[in-house]
């Protein structure tokens, strides 16, 4: 855990340092264009010293880390506000959407997978197989575009965003919350669909494997009720590999979520990251990526612990 977090910070630092030139030069250039006058040489040197750009890279890194630990993520050049405030505003919404998308993925994937396996080769099975394949093959943003297009063309609705205009810049209230709930389904469906599609296929495959095993036949021969039989044995076995990969879905969701959020222009971290990258506002971009990855790592960690609690056979012992 700790090592991964440390590595994450290194990656974020590399991203911040990636664009040619350092951010002080960018800052100076911006100040000059804003004020329309040249800066004094002494001033520039003072600025460079203040930001520590003249020091070797590893010292800059340690300084940056020390600032991070104190909760200082630098200032966004584009917004002229502390990075941490910007992220704090938007991150909760991202987390909420990702959490809802996870719930959607499993709520859709597992039951449909079970249905497809039990009624193999039925019309419903074929229908969900086709839907599943398309969900798997269509990139998130395309799905978002197509949904937006359909809604606009046939319902005359302009979807996108998370709030209606009248609630855009007002503090939270019951009305705003209801408004948000109305806007939520589309992003959640778009982000959750590819995962759900993959899940349907895995669940169907695993369950089909189990259904042909002898213990199912034995149970059936003994006269166990079909429903009890299904839910008591094969489904519990088949669901195991799915539970054990919960941790993997999270990076996927965050990744797909970012691009969906940009297309739907939600007030979350995705568009913020995009804007920051376009404007080369690397302090902000690096921090967002670090936070996103950080949350993913924590989510994965939690799911691992849950898994160990659920399935007593899994033990994290050091094997030799």
């Amino acid at each position: 855990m700790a090592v991964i977090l440390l590595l994450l910070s290194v990656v974020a630092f590399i991203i911040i340092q990636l664009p040619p030139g350092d951010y002080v030069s960018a800052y100076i250039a911006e100040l000059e264009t804003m004020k329309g006058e040249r800066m004094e040489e002494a001033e520039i040197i003072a600025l460079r010293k203040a930001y520590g750009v003249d020091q070797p890279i590893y010292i800059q890194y340690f300084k940056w880390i020390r600032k991070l630990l104190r909760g200082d993520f630098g200032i966004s050049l584009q917004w002229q506000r502390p990075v941490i405030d910007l992220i704090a505003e938007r991150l909760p919404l991202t987390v909420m959407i990702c959490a809802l998308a996870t719930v959607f993925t499993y709520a859709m994937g597992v039951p449909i997978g079970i249905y497809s396996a039990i009624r193999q080769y039925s019309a419903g099975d074929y229908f969900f197989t086709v839907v599943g394949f398309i969900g798997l093959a269509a990139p998130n943003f395309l799905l978002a575009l197509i949904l937006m297009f359909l809604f606009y063309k046939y319902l005359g609705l302009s979807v996108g965003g998370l709030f209606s205009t009248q609630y855009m810049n007002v503090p939270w209230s019951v009305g705003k919350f209801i408004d948000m709930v109305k806007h939520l389904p589309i992003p959640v469906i778009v982000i959750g669909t590819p995962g759900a599609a993959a899940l349907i296929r895995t669940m169907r495959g695993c369950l089909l494997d189990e259904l042909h095993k002898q213990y199912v036949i034995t149970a059936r021969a003994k006269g166990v009720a079909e429903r009890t039989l299904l839910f008591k044995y094969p489904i519990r076995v088949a669901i195991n590999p799915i539970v054990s990969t919960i941790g993997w879905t999270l990076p996927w969701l965050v990744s797909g979520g970012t691009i969906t959020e940009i297309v739907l222009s939600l007030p979350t971290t995705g568009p913020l990251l995009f804007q920051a990258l376009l404007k080369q506002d690397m302090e902000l971009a690096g921090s967002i990526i670090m936070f996103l990855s950080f949350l993913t790592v924590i989510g994965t960690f939690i799911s691992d612990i849950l898994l160990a609690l659920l399935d007593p056979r899994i033990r994290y012992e050091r094997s030799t």
Partner: protein
Amino acid sequence: MKKEKRKIGAEEKFYVATQWQLMWRKFKKHKLAILGGTILVIFYVLGTFCEFFSTQDLYKQHLGYIHAPPQRIRFFHEEGFHLRPFVYGLKRRLDPRTLRRTYVEDKTKKYPIYFFVHGDKYKLWNLFPTDVHFFGVKEGTMFLFGTDKLGRDLFSRNLYAARISLSVSLIGVALSFVLGCILGGISGYFGGRVDMAIQRVIEFLICIPTIPLWMALSAALPKKWSPIKVYFGITIILSIVGWCGLARVVRGKLLELREEDFVMAAKIAGASELRIIVNHLLPSFLSYLIVSLTLSIPNMILGETSLSFLGLGIRAPAVSWGVLLQNAQNVRTVALHPWLLIPGLFVIITVLTFNFLGDGLRDAADPYK
């Protein structure tokens, strides 16, 4: 009697068939995979010879036909059936109030389609100058997929885009293959601390959400770079994450095979380590590698498309499916001109067919089952 003889012959053939022959036999049974493979071959041929198959030049603008809808290829005219297909001409109307351009088919104008017509000049692969196109009209215009906001033919642009989108993924996968094989091989064969370190790195890379990382890396590519440089830059960025899955497969298989009896036998017979790896281990898991590669191509295509769609990947004047989809960013534009979504259809078909092909290969990879 005769029948039985043939049956035995077939059975014997099964026993003497090599591993690859068995795989091919099993693969042929997977209908979807065969279909997928065929479609992919067609796509790759279209992409490779896109100058020849396209009807027009990539940048040619028809200012009289901005956002023109796709023209349908027809066989039936008022007088009846025509063996030679043709398209109707387009007539433009300007709505006086909304100032919107609409196009209607002009049934008086008929442009027959010919094979191997002389059209815009081009150089195939920048080497062979010619002006022969696979098909086209001799007079008038033909826009099979409509035109974009600059009046450029989207059919031709889609073919040119296919070349870039399809080749990015292939080169990216080739890079991942090299990285994955080397690192996975080292990890699996030597084990111990090296293995530990490489596995941790892989776990770490898998933890990072890919699209934000790709976005940040490709945003850092200098704006002044030429399209070719950007193209290779994007490929490298895509393969930074791509090799992890492959390295895991290689390592897993190596660990499994290392304990097999035939490796022990080879060791006792005095074979060198290199010989064991190349002659005995590699053929045993090459099929699994191919499967894993096939299934990792779709991710690359989706990654490239997403990046280019956001304007962070391949940049105009180069075209890829993602670049073409940029035109469809605005819902209102799409609602008026739905044919702008056609590149998305290509992406979906390609990804689907790669998945089908991968499924078929996976079944075939273990022919003894």
